[in-house]
């Protein structure tokens, strides 16, 4: 369901910085559904990959064989990302807060962490430079605190300052795609607000998974369930071994 919803956010011809797992599924679904000319770039340096198998890492050899271009990582970050060529970036993380800031670094304090997470990887710069980012994360109150313990990837406001004041080129996280609802960044306040509910989900159930008082959009949307075509592609073609799909 999250993969299908994420796929619908992608427009044909866009250049997408892809991560492994759900974002990869979403991109490949979008390519087969409505966006055949989507260009996928992996931070490993593969551009225009057409993997013959589901890649298990962003450095999978299947992303290289038959791709349009392979370049070094200095080019990935300088010539593609910092150059402003990436239109959509996918981000996820252990914590997402009210303004779409993401933490993938530590739970607890930086110097004495309770849980040490992997760190930024390319997430910090994707959050700064991609024209817009889509956050994909399952709802639960610990994962959606009012404020993250550590800002790895900046959202719409960081510690009180807006993106534009901080000089960030990209528009930042425009949506958070969860397993129950879609949150959208409010154009004025930058706050992540409830925009659309999945079928059979109540606004209260969404609020229960979020650690701040959720503002609701004036008119709540209803997210269409995955179509038969979407389901068939995801289950039979893209991830038949259920590596990334769980229900």
């Amino acid at each position: 369901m999250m993969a299908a919803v994420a796929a619908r956010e992608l427009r044909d011809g866009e250049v997408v910085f892809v991560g492994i797992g759900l974002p990869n599924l979403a991109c490949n679904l979008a390519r087969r559904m409505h966006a055949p000319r989507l260009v996928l770039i992996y931070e490993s340096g593969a551009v225009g990959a057409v993997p013959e198998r589901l890649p298990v890492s962003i450095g999978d050899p299947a992303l290289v064989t038959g791709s349009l271009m392979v370049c070094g990582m200095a080019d990935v970050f300088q010539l593609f990302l910092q150059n402003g060529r990436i239109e959509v970036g996918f981000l996820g993380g252990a914590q997402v807060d009210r303004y779409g800031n993401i933490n993938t670094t530590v739970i607890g304090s930086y110097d004495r962490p309770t849980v040490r997470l992997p760190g930024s990887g390319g997430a910090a710069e994707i959050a700064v430079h991609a024209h817009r980012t889509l956050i994909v994360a399952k709802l639960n109150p610990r994962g959606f605190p009012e404020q993250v313990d550590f800002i790895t990837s900046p959202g719409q406001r960081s510690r009180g300052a807006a993106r534009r004041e901080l000089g960030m080129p990209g528009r930042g996280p425009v949506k958070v795609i969860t397993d129950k609802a879609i949150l959208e960044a409010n154009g004025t306040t930058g706050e992540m607000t409830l925009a659309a509910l999945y079928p059979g989900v109540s606004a209260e159930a969404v609020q229960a998974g979020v650690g701040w008082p959720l503002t609701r959009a004036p008119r709540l949307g209803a997210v269409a369930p995955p179509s038969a075509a979407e389901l068939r592609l995801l289950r039979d073609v893209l991830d038949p071994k259920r590596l990334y799909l769980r229900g």
Partner: protein
Amino acid sequence: MTDDASKVTSMRDAIARFVHDGDTVVIEGFTHLICFAAGHEIIRQGRRDLTLARLTPDLIYDQMIAAGCARKLVFSWAGNPGVGSLHAFRRAIEGRATERRLEIEEYSHFGMVARFSAGAARLPFWPLRNYMGTDLAKANPRIKTVACPYTGEALATVPALNPGVTIVHAQRADAAGNTQMWGLVGVQKEAAFASERVIVVAEELVDEEVIRSDPNRTVIPSMIVSAVVVEPWGAHPSYAQGYYDRDNDFYVAWESISRDPSRLQRYLDEFVHGVPDRAAYLEKQPQVTRLKAKERFSAGVNYGF
């Protein structure tokens, strides 16, 4: 993925659509893959007030200066390599009439490479350890310094160069603009990524499958390309490794052609204004086929997993 939106067009249309009066224009290529075909079409279409940027202006910018296309030249070495001078350029700089006086902005090769690198990375400047003890920074106030935040030492800087249009000649490209080149690659990748618009001129149009069979050879991805022009021998008298050799005789001949303004104009009348396109230019000089490259194929490598 099939990036099936073809960008293939004629040189005439590509120049008409993507090169405008007043633009900063870059036709790059270090000795290798210099797109004379594009320069000639720009002259034919009478573009004016261009800022021409390139490490080595070479004969093509000398011709464009003589034709009155240029208002300004940004460069690092202006000569006819191994032969002599670019005389149209020299007349314009030395104020000896005929050619309109030309504004210049001058760097060294490293400085120009750094300007393109900054432009390609969309940074406003690039640091380099250079220019101490030279008069270059005095002659060009755009060469500045920055203090290193770690060591405190002063490093030279050059400002980013972001052309309006960059024209890249290459051995092969697909219809969407995914472009491969080999042999000397100069600063073409950086110039293309720095540019607002990119015209790729290819010796050969190939299937996307050819590009995909060897992705490490791709230098320019389709997403930054505005137009693809297929123009065999489009770099003559420059060369294309594996396709044809450099026409060194013409480089030698240019010394005396360009020294005489009226001979230079006769050359332009005959070989540029006097022909509608590159095919006609080549028909006038069948002897260039002597330059066709011999075969020295590399072996392929395994991309399997």
